């Protein structure tokens, strides 16, 4: 069964390091997203696994079989890796009809005519594009082209499917629809999906595991909710979640077993959690906006800077001394600008980061 393993994989372009010593294990039938800002090396990683790009060093195994090994000089071409690849711009061949596009890969596998016709028909039906068989790609809308591209990729039944930002060229509504379809397709095809995106919402909603990268380095590899609740560092914490987590600088004033006294927002607070043996003096508190409710009698005073009601919830930007804080309130509330409000901190997933290097130190509750 197709399990993918990357060992110490690196890729350099002359001096620029695209991917640095990457280790990754993608489970069989998983739906793994490579997430990160543009230029973080996620697409390069995907292309290396697919065999479109040659790593500078390392080892890649698909289904226990090495497809690339820098030391032994193994480098299988993409077509020997039994994979499918869905490109961001679809890469449909403009001079072939939809039917020909889907049939082409099967022709290359030397299937006979009837079998090809049957398979193409099946694919057209699966993707609900049967009526477009004789059209050329240019005569289709973006969403339809996307479906053709998926059909073409799935036709030879690859056991691993790679997708490079496949939804980024679609409008918001279609993107939502295709997301649902992709997740369904993952179950229906019973294969392993590796998916590249810079959209954290896409990563959160689709995948079984998220691989978050920055500047060619792996930041965290975990299930989406763990990434959200227990971010490995401030970069991960800020990249995932919308609106972004609040980062509030704090000073450690003293500690006992399991608690630490912090000076934060001009006040003293007690942090309770599983503390590491040594705490630096300067730390950063990470508080998700939903853990920072507005309450009249809240211990921290702040001023409303602006209110952004979105219907289901309202994002409130607040000014507290020098800090700009974000709070999310359920329902539609409109606070007058510059109104004074009280803030509270709730929940057990308040994160304590190292103030210097931003690494995750502890997880717990905060009380003023």
């Amino acid at each position, binding site marked *: 069964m197709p399990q993918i393993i990357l060992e110490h994989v690196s890729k350099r372009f002359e001096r620029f390091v695209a991917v640095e010593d990457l280790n990754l294990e993608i489970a069989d039938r998983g739906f793994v997203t490579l997430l990160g800002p543009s230029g973080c090396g996620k697409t390069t990683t995907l292309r290396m696994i697919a065999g479109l790009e040659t790593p500078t060093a390392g080892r890649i195994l698909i289904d226990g079989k090495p497809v690339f090994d820098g030391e032994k000089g193994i480098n299988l071409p993409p077509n020997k890796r039994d994979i499918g690849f869905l490109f961001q711009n679809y890469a449909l061949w403009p001079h072939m009809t939809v039917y020909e596009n889907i049939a082409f890969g099967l022709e290359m596998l030397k299937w006979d005519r009837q079998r090809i016709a049957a398979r193409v028909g099946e694919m057209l039906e699966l993707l609900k594009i049967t009526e477009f068989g004789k059209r050329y790609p240019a005569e289709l809308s973006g969403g339809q082209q996307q479906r053709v591209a998926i059909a*073409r990729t799935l036709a030879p039944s690859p056991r691993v499917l790679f997708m490079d930002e496949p939804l980024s060229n679609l409008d918001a509504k279609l993107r939502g629809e295709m997301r649902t379809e992709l997740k369904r397709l993952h179950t229906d095809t019973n294969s392993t999906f590796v998916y590249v995106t810079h959209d954290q919402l896409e990563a959160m909603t689709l995948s079984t595991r998220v691989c978050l990268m920055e500047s060619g380095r792996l930041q965290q590899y975990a299930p989406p909710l763990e990434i959200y609740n227990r971010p490995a560092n401030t970069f991960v914490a800020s990249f995932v979640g919308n609106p972004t987590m609040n980062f509030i600088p704090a000073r450690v004033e003293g500690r006992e077993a399991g608690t630490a006294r912090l000076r934060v927002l001009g006040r003293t607070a007690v942090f309770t959690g599983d503390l590491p043996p040594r705490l630096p003096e300067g730390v950063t508190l990470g508080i998700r906006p939903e853990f920072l409710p507005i309450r009249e009698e809240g211990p921290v005073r702040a001023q409303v800077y602006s209110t952004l009601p979105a219907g289901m919830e309202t994002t409130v930007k607040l000014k507290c001394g020098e800090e700009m804080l974000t709070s999310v309130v359920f329902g539609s509330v409109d606070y007058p600008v510059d109104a004074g409000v009280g803030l509270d901190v709730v929940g057990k997933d308040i994160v304590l980061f190292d103030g210097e290097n931003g690494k995750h130190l502890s997880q717990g509750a905060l009380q003023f």
Partner: protein
Amino acid sequence: MTKGAADLRREPLKYRLRAFFGKPANLILLFFLITLTVLSLMPMITMLTNMFTVHAGTEKKMLRQGVGSWTLNHFQMLFADREWSQSNFWTPFLNSLIVAAGSGLLGILIGGAVAWFITRSDLKCKKFISAVFVFPYMMPAWTLALFWINMFQNSRVGGGVVGMVESFFGVCMPEWFVYGLFPMIVVIGLHYSPFAYLLIGGILKNMDATLEESATILKASRWTIIRRVTVPIVMPAILSTFLLIFSSGFASYTVPVFLGSATRTFTLSTKMRALIQAGYEGQGYIMAFFSILLGTAILGLNQYFTGKRKSFTTVTGKSGQVSLVKLRGAGGVISALLILFTLFFAIMPLVSFALESVIMQPGNYSFSNMTLNFWIGTEDSAFETGMPNGILMNGTMWMGLLRQVGLALTVAMIVGTCGMLVGYACVRRRGSWLARAVENLAFFPYLMPAMAFGTIYLAVATSASFKWMYGSFFLLGLVASVKFLPFASRSGVNSMMQIAPEIEEAATIFGVPWVTRMRRILFPIQKSAIMSGYLLPVINVMREVALFTLLVPYPRYLLTTMLFSFNETGYAQYGSAVTLLIIVMIIAINSLVNKLTGASFDKGIGG
């Protein structure tokens, strides 16, 4: 950066080499790196040594030195021998500069104006004007020169032959108008104005209309918009077009030969040939080298203009519906003038050549003076035509035509294929030094004026080890292939750039082998552009003179060089007939290829 495990696991050289050669693009690049280095650098070296060594003939006696020994005599004569260098270098050089600058300006002015009218005004008959206007660019430049002479020569200047204007209207144009620098500027400027039109028009057409529209909304007047928005945006393109026409004008050989011989007005390229034929090879090679240096400098300047931050030529946008300038009453007049103008320079030359090729006594256009003997005459008419028979009855002519066509097709096959491969490989390996090197090497011959390029190959073919090449069909094919590769490789690069790499990768994933990917995916997508890459060299070879004139074994070997020998020896009617034949063949080839593949020598930007 930490020295992680990755550094220790770098691939051994052996595997990296295997990975390198596993990519077809790398193999192609390596092949062209070696071939092009040999084909363009070797001749350069031969030419350089020839600049410093003593040649056989008069020079050997004069200097009392052995052939091949070192000397600086060529430099001394060319640059420091007062009168000799004045008449043999400085004056021709200055003439070349004047012609180049003048024709550059004229070309931009005419081409730019037409481009603006076609893309930005509500001119009438746009399609027609656009189609006819680019026509002279397809014809060899010397046809316009010949046409000029046919029209304006008169009893008071040059050989005293009466031209059409004097014959029909009784007007005698002054000598400066008929021969010399003025007509050279006009002819070259006119010839390249379609080129300016295509480049500038293309940019105007692709320029985002919102750039101009936003100025309209800010209450800028039409004229202010042209001055402050449109012109600055197309300025880099205008400069670059000017430089390209400048370098073509500077290198032009055929036009100065026709328009300068009568008054002995030399330019650098005509002088170069005269010197080489008069036994001053060393001096000629120095001139060739000098023009190569100048060409390189101009191209460098061009890259500077188009490459720097202020180059907006790539600015394209949705280019919505441009609101066209209403010409109102003037529109009809301007349309009529443009139609007359384009017709005059596109159709009249053909009429003129047809006429000139059938009149016995030059200048007399009455029916009684007409004969078809220059075309289909037999031995009976030998006396009146001065040749054994008419050109259509002449074996030498047919052989020349056959060779020219054969050469054109051979070169097109080589150049078209190489251009496509270079384009593919350079685009796939874009950014690597190898791709950069090959792209530059393939473009290098463009910097060399055709006459200079012919000259350096002459230097090679007359050297001891390559004697077997001299005057051979092989040599002509080789020279033309290298010389015309720049255009083909440029168009190859451009067409391949339009295909996203994913288009090919999508096929790679299905295990499609490289040859099949080229044949079934890349080639069909860019069919028209790639066919143009094959068509261009055909037309170039069909009309090329300067490149071949020094290399043919005898003047009547090819059709174009034959034409020049006719004109030099005074058989003007034969010259006109052969010219007409060449033009008709070029048009026929272009329209045939256009019908079959949709490719065209120069895709008009249309109305």
